[in-house]
């Protein structure tokens, strides 16, 4: 059955290193979201795309984070340089996103657990 996939599932890195997380949305979904989840802040929206165009990245620290969709089957979230405060679970979600109730359901991937030492 169709599902969102994310790689890697776990990543441990040292402060200052570059981290790239990848997401494959469900085929046919035109909206992709990146979230970060921590115990303190909960689930926060970092950025989202519709038809591969960035619509809102106001939740993302611009100096070190970047999000792209090179094609309709791949979304990436990059952190450079990484810092210990970036340690969190990063989720990708996809949806139809055309407006209206049926398109607002989001399908989440399993997440990437990032630990920055």
């Amino acid at each position, binding site marked *: 059955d169709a599902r969102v996939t994310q790689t890697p599932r776990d990543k441990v890195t040292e402060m200052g290193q570059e981290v790239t997380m990848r997401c494959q949305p469900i085929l046919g979904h035109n909206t992709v979201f990146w979230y970060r989840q921590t115990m303190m802040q909960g689930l926060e*929206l970092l950025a989202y795309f519709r038809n591969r165009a960035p619509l809102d990245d106001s939740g993302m620290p611009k100096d070190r984070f970047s999000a792209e969709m090179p094609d309709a089957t791949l979304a990436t979230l990059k952190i450079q340089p990484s810092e210990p405060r970036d340690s969190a679970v990063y989720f990708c979600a996809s*949806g139809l*996103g055309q407006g209206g109730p049926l398109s607002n359901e*989001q*399908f*989440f991937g*399993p997440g990437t657990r990032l630990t920055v030492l």
Partner: protein
Amino acid sequence: SQKIEQNSEALNIQEGKTATLTCNYTNYSPAYLQWYRQDPGRGPVFLLLIRENEKEKRKERLKVTFDTTLKQSLFHITASQPADSATYLCALTPSSNTGKLIFGQGTTLQVKP
């Protein structure tokens, strides 16, 4: 400021009872409100969506209410089972023409046999 609040304390109930979870929001006029379930180590899973002009929505043992005057949604699980134990997140859509969701912190439900 804009806020979505869910009870941060875990809710513990006995199997067979009805669980009721609360979601309150301030300074939003959401077009839709959704509830998601999240199990440890997994991503959230969509459960129900309710529109601003709907008072109630049901799906099997689940029921959601939406009171835009009180700015509150209630999520009920009837005849609860241990398998219902999870964290439940409410999320609202700030406007109808985007897919953007703002999530609450979630409430953990523990159903004891």
